[in-house]
């Protein structure tokens, strides 16, 4: 099947909810950092934007605007200790098995097999959508996030938008 046209669908949805028009980011070029060591020596972190939080923490607000929250996710914690609060995708499957969206356990298995060097000390959940103040992402919240990755010695990041 043809890919779903999310830009049109979300523009309609936001419009129907009285949100201001959303100006999607559009880039002609992209930055680039080559991987300089083999995967078997890399520390790998995951980042997901699907409203996943620990059940002892406040839930994410699915309809927040300009929410720059990003939570650390302990890879050693049982994945059934997490909750999902997001109304922009169907998380019925992910509620039963977080790995179908956020494959924390599968990554741990690849580390066990030696296919990657290590799982990072922390994974990440945040950067939900509907961010109208995008310069704050570029200048503040994303750079602050980078500092956390560097503190953990992360060699590569797998980002999962939802």
């Amino acid at each position, binding site marked *: 099947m043809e890919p779903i046209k999310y830009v049109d669908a979300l523009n309609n*949805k936001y419009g*129907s909810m009285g949100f201001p028009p959303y100006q999607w980011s559009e880039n002609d070029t*992209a930055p680039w950092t080559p991987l300089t060591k083999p995967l078997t020596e890399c520390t790998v972190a995951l980042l997901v934007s699907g409203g996943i939080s620990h059940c002892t923490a406040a839930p994410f607000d699915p309809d927040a605007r300009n929410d720059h929250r990003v939570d650390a996710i302990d890879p050693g914690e049982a994945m059934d200790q997490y909750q999902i609060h997001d109304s922009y995708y169907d998380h019925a499957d992910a509620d039963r098995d977080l790995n179908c969206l956020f*494959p924390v356990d599968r990554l741990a*298995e690849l580390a066990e097999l030696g296919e990657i060097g290590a799982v990072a000390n922390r994974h990440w959940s945040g950067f939900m959508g509907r961010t109208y103040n995008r310069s704050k992402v570029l200048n503040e919240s994303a750079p602050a996030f980078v500092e956390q990755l560097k503190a953990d010695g992360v060699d590569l990041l*797998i980002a999962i*938008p939802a």
Partner: protein
Amino acid sequence: MGLVSRVVEESGIPTVNVSTGRDITALVRPPRSLFVNFPMGNTFGRAGDNVMQTKILRAALDFIVTAEEPGVLVDLPLKWDDDFVYFAGETTPEAVAKQMKK
């Protein structure tokens, strides 16, 4: 999310996005993107399908090694069993009224 990947990549850490929203990803243009034509929320497959989850995760890791061109977007040749539609979320009048208060 794509914007965050761009900032992370610029800071010297390679990134790969695994996306179920092809049009959004094509606009934002993260450094490396794999498109999986599965429902949003099922990026790595179905609940309990560990084999598929691992397959897509491995594809993402391999892509970090093999991708050569900044902004590259590759379609993973995987097919979801059934057709699916845009998930409109909660559209009851009560849910919409709650959302519009924000």
